[in-house]
């Protein structure tokens, strides 16, 4: 009989293994590769100095807690976050004398005023390299995500942006922190997210489609809905 025992154990474990494999598809593996290469930027922008937390002991090491959207103004108004115009950098740095002579800031001003060797014309845009690059057929909408999570649900900006961009306030951005693969996006869209009416979204029965199940409005549990699940949301 032990042969049958062996056999049934084998079959059961085969079934379990295949079910598990099928079930675990969404767990997106993150490898070194999926984060893209390290990128050398024309100016190594110290995000931690601008957005980082204040360090009371070593103020020179800490940041200034500048809101992401102070510079990345387009993110809340457009699908594309864009890069802040050079004007924005200069606007502040014109009056910050203390770091005026540091190499990075000197470089910055070369783009504004033109370099002495004439290689950079005055007012030329800084050729930043793309780090968070999605394929051309993917259209991620920054505006909607920020409206939804920052403005309607009052999540901290750092958290909302950081979900995809990582803990920017501690770094200069040289590579991605998340894979940004489709599975990464879909994973999140499959989750139930809080839907709050206070933020101003009259969701109506939209939630039915996005959450595929009609929400019970008056139940004590908070109202949730899934993210949009139709392909045309991101691919057009």
């Amino acid at each position, binding site marked *: 009989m032990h042969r*049958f025992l062996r*056999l049934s154990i084998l079959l059961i474990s085969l*079934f379990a293994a295949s079910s598990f494999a099928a079930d675990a598809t969404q767990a997106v593996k993150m490898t070194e590769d999926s984060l893209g290469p390290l990128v050398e930027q024309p100016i190594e922008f110290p995000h931690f100095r601008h957005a980082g937390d204040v360090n009371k002991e070593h103020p020179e090491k800490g940041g200034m807690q500048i809101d992401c959207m102070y510079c990345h103004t387009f993110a809340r108004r457009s699908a594309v976050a864009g890069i802040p115009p050079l004007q924005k950098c200069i606007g502040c740095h014109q009056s910050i004398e203390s770091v005026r002579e540091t190499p990075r800031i000197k470089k910055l001003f070369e783009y504004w005023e033109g370099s002495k060797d004439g290689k950079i014309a005055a007012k030329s845009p800084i050729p930043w390299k793309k780090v968070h690059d999605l394929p051309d057929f993917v259209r991620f909408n920054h505006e909607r995500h920020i409206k939804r999570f920052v403005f309607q649900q009052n999540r901290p900006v750092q958290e909302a942006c950081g979900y995809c961009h990582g803990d920017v306030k501690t770094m200069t951005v040289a590579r991605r922190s998340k894979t940004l693969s489709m599975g990464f996006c879909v994973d999140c869209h*499959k989750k139930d997210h809080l839907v709050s009416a206070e933020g101003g979204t009259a969701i109506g029965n939209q939630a039915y489609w996005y959450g595929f199940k009609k929400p019970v409005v008056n139940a004590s549990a908070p109202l949730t809905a899934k993210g949009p*699940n*139709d392909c045309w949301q991101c691919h057009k």
Partner: protein
Amino acid sequence: MSQRHMLALFNNFEEAEAVVRELRGASIKGFNADSDMVVKSPIEHPEVEEFLGEKPVYVQWFTLGGALMGGLLGFFLISGAQANFFAQVKGGKPIVPFPPNFVLTYEMFILGGVFVSILGFLICAGLPAKRSPLYSAKVSEDQISILVKSDDSAAGELKAIFTKHQAVEIQEEAGK
């Protein structure tokens, strides 16, 4: 007591049959006809096997298990995959529609059945196997052979039976 293997080759199936019958009939000390005797033949030869006594075959249980597993796995894999697209219907059909899933379940049923049957075959037939201690290429040609394992003591008696039935050749190998 040390054991030895002995292989007898026969040209004739009737002879081999007679040997098996006799071996099973005779009670030789140090030799168990049920477990120590293997008949090797070039063709599938149910008549010879009959004389070896009822030996059950379990492959069909593998088949059943495999087919069921395949079918279940198929249905749940497919339905589960379809449930991923919870906001997209196709052609006005339900998200988990039965007719196509049945077709695929059917295919998976067969696939599971076939695969696991083969697996079962290999397990039950003990394949892949090492060569048994004594083997003659003649078996794959036209001769039937009987391989026995016995105590040294029984060897003589067995050999006598083989010779009696016109064994073409008897190979021996000393046991450990």
